């Protein structure tokens, strides 16, 4: 395909000439690689979904037939149901408390100056970045020395240690982008700090708090390692699933897992849509650059 080189005398011409087919080749290659990444990300999940409908006790091809019996089995599993209820209880408690505490922390930090708020923020964030086993063990030790039995209270407190930082950071980030003249105007017009927060600041950071609460809910519901350290006899859903996979293999696990995956995706889509709607009107609250 390459012409006689003596006819091509400038560097650019040569490059352009070879360039085109080469570019097309690399273009094709990069698109393939790119899509490959996405396939890699989703394939395992799809495989679970497929196998959850497979009428076979083993996860392998060939396909034994389409069935929904694994899904039906879920409804009858009492232990599964109680683990779901327990997990939801934990999550609700954790979301409730971490939203309040995290928002307070964010507002307090944002309205303070000096080094103290920076140091305190860093300290509060530590549990969110240490490895799960470390956090779990340290909390288990603490609770044992405090005489607290493993169970709901311990789990909730344990989850709070790493969810409160998340809420704090999300809300703090939003506070920092807010135009400060709103709080000033509010105080100028006669509202003290508490009323300013309630009437002016809070409505403007509501979406951030909501987003953080959502994040917290998923983090808490899905949490395995720390819960493992702090749980008593009653298991949360992930703990239940995990126990099941260690000791045996019922394909109904596939069904449960697929369901959870679907519900999560639906929730996210729903949540992001409603948050986006809120975002538009709040854009006018941003700092003018």
């Amino acid at each position, binding site marked *: 395909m390459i012409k006689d080189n003596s006819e091509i005398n400038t560097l650019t011409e040569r490059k352009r000439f070879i360039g085109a087919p080469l570019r097309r080749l690399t273009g094709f290659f990069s698109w393939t690689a790119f899509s490959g990444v996405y396939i890699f990300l989703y394939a395992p999940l799809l495989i679970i979904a497929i196998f959850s409908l497979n009428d076979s006790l083993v996860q392998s091809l060939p396909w034994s037939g389409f069935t929904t019996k694994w899904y039906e089995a879920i409804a009858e599993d009492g232990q599964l149901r109680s683990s779901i209820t327990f997990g939801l209880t934990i999550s609700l408690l954790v979301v409730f408390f971490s939203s309040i505490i995290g928002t307070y922390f964010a507002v307090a930090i944002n309205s303070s100056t000096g080094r103290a708020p920076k140091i305190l923020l860093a300290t509060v964030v530590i549990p969110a970045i240490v490895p799960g086993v470390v956090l779990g063990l340290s909390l288990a030790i603490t609770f044992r020395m405090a005489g607290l039995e493993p169970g709901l209270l311990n789990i909730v407190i344990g989850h709070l240690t790493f969810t409160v930082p998340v809420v704090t950071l999300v809300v703090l980030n939003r506070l920092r982008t807010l135009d400060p003249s709103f709080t000033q105007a509010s105080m100028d*017009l006669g509202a003290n700090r508490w009323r300013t927060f309630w*009437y002016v600041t809070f409505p403007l950071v509501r979406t951030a708090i909501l987003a953080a609460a959502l994040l917290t809910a998923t983090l808490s519901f899905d949490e395995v390692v720390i819960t493992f350290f702090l749980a008593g006899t009653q298991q949360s859903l992930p703990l239940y699933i995990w126990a099941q996979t260690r000791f045996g293999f019922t394909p109904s696990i596939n069904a449960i897992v697929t369901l959870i995956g679907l519900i999560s995706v639906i929730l996210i889509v729903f949540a992001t849509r409603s948050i986006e709607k809120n975002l538009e009107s709040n854009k*006018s609250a941003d700092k003018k650059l």
Partner: protein
Amino acid sequence: MLDGTKGIYPAVVRFVDVSKRYKDSTSLAVDNVSFEVYPGEFFSILGPSGSGKTSCLRMIAGFEQPTSGQITLENTNLVGVPPHLRNVNTVFQNYALFPHMSIEENVSYPLRMARIKKTEIQQRTKEALLLVEMHEFARRLPHQLSGGQKQRVALARALVGKPKVLLLDEPLGALDLQLRQQMQIKLKDLQREVGITFIYVTHDQGEALSMSNRLAVMSSGRIEQIGTPKDVYFRPKTYFVAGFIGRANLEPGVVEISQGNVVGRWGDFVFPVAKETPLGPCVFSLRHESVNVNGGAGEISAVGVIRDIVFLGDSLEVFVFVNGLTLVAKTQMQIGSDLKIGQDVIVSFKSADVVRVDG
């Protein structure tokens, strides 16, 4: 009174030797400032950015505290009092309308915070909105309004609580020229109608001169001069004021005694000055429009040569080299349309229009 003018009523806002130094700053943002504002007047603080004018305003509002000195509101010391307990309201530069509240909720906010009866709140909110002609927009949200409309709502919100003083922080800065000029007239009328003391901060001298009863000119944290617009314009006391307000010729000269009279020597010009004028080197200020070419009043005159002509639309600026000085004359188009560069002209001015300022 502190600035030499006579006041009939006691001051509503008084600054006494107020200074402000911000954290981590070596210089004073406000340097030993004292002034008084009288009830019912439209008082402006004029100055370039960094002059300290906004800091003064924020200290009245309560968002900053003075490092030293006293600020009083009707004889009550304001130092240490938080903003929400001060009977002053601010119109912010970016309006600061609460984006999640309707116009009505925004305007009624101060009344709601004061826990006034509901019926009274409704009544007063309606009045305030009517006052700024925004009554029809009561249910709208701020982001649906234009800049000028937002500004009027911000005004209504600041006035509805009947504060003792209204503080305005460059409120017209974000509006285009036409709108700005309209709003200037409206603001002035509004202030007269409502009777509340306005303290208006701006860097735009046109605004300050056209709207104020009195104004203070600030530079680098200090007050250069306080007076009525005419005082400040025609009788600037300092070099800064002479140069900042309007356009003037500022050239060095000297005041000396000649044949028993006190005269000013400016280039080759010699003219009589007031007996009390301090002797010695100084700077003389003469407004561009006070300099005439080829006609016009003025007993001091000489022949000069035109160096440059600048077209300004409604007028011309003529740069003339005369008697050792380069003076700029501002003339109307009719008079100056046939002037050319290099031409000889007669330059004349009244000696009374020349102001001596410190160099």
